[in-house]
């Protein structure tokens, strides 16, 4: 059994492989946000802390863009997954 580079897991949270990242880029993705939306890489529990730089490097390599210009995906609150129940409670208590 031989593993190829394309089988390497890049985003451990969402099980996204290097092959999937490369495919997204070859199909025209040019930003981290686009890759995130297409593959879900960086949308799991760690929110991209592990894979962000790996994807940025791959994107820089494939597009010829300097890594300094590969901006991370938009970072929005909440910055980690939060249970819907906790969010729902905010509203409840505010009404009391």
């Amino acid at each position, binding site marked *: 059994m031989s593993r190829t580079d394309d089988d390497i897991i890049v985003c451990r949270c969402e099980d996204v492989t290097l092959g999937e990242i490369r495919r997204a880029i070859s199909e025209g993705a040019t930003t981290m946000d686009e890759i995130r939306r297409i593959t879900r890489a960086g949308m799991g529990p760690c929110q991209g*802390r592990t894979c962000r*730089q790996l994807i940025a*490097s791959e994107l820089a390599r494939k597009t010829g863009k300097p890594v300094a*210009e590969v*901006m*991370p995906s938009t*970072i929005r609150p909440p*910055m980690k997954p*939060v249970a819907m129940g906790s969010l729902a409670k905010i509203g409840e208590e505010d009404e009391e």
Partner: protein
Amino acid sequence: MAVRTTELVIIGAGPAGICAALEAASHGVKTTLVDRGEELGGQLIKQTHKFFGWHKKSAGTRGVLIAKKLAEEVLNNENITLLNSTEALGYYDDGTLLVETPRGIDRVLGDRLIVATGASERMLLFPGNDLPGVYGAGAVQTLMNVHGVRPGDSVLMIGSGNIGLIVSYQLLQAGVRVAAVVEAMPTIGGYAVHASKIRRLGVPIMTRHTIKEAYGKEQVEGAVIWELDENWNGIPGTEKDLEVDVVCLAIGLTPLAELLWQCGAEMAYIPELGGFVPLYDETMETTRKGVFVAGDVAGIEEASTAMAAGRMAGLSAARSLGKVSDLDYSRLRNEIAGELEGLRSGPASAKILSGIAKMRAMLQSVKEAAAVSEAEPANQPANQPADQPANRPAKQAASEPAEAGDLPKAGARDSEAQGNNGSKSEEAVGA
């Protein structure tokens, strides 16, 4: 939802955040210290080795003991409220920090914010990197030094910076075999004193080598390493198969700056500082007024400088709240600046200093641009809604193609990371 009102919020209770809290609290600032961990001290709690330090500042003291002492000071300080096991979720324009505590979501409303969130470990791409048994060096230290658990029987260490060398030595002390330390760069990244220690114990340190793959059915059963050519490509035929059950990655750290991106602070990519960092001035204030930074999030260094920078951030926050007299301020500011200068006087700090100089030049150009567009308030970063992060490059990017070009090859990226780790581990200060 509970709302806590405070004068200063600090995120991260590692060396930088704690020292910021103690400094601010000493001027009477009501401070809330938030940390996701249960214990205070950040990475210090797993650092069982002695620090090099500068002058008599913590030199020769074990990190874990520094953490203990700092934690006691925090807990005994009536101006500091500790929110542990609490994570920051977002920071809003009105000064609200949304946090998740074990009891649910709370709001902390503060006048000033210090972000001291530290760094995360870099990961490497190779087949088998998702197998159980592949660890970051931080995780190995936590397992061994905090929980007393051996990560395995035989380890391949990737990276010969001070972290890789020190963790290798700690593994040997715990009775674990270290099969080899591989380093993509042509030279060992960390201090000779650390390298000699593990070499004397029979561990080969192989420069210009990297991991080709890890293999195993349910977990790591072995790893293949190979030599790299001048272009960072593996040389076929140089493969060596090592029987190991742990692959430990010690290839460097990168700032954990999500909150700063989110709240709209200007960021820039500065390889010398470990990646994207916030632009900040001598007082540690970012381009978001009232938001300060300290420690690894502002650029990867080590604990001694993080503590001094933390004090500087705490002092500046206290000063901006009107709690420090002019006389005290200039005395303390000079004292801390002198300490930082001393800590960064060694040859290992040249890279950090050049990174800080680059960052300051970018800050200057951002400030000049802001002054020009002052007539149009809509352009001011401070008016940016918090949920619309300013994901724009600082102006430098175009004029500063710099190291970016060295990324076309897989090995080059690895080497950059390992090189980073080399000169600025979290362990030691060149003095």
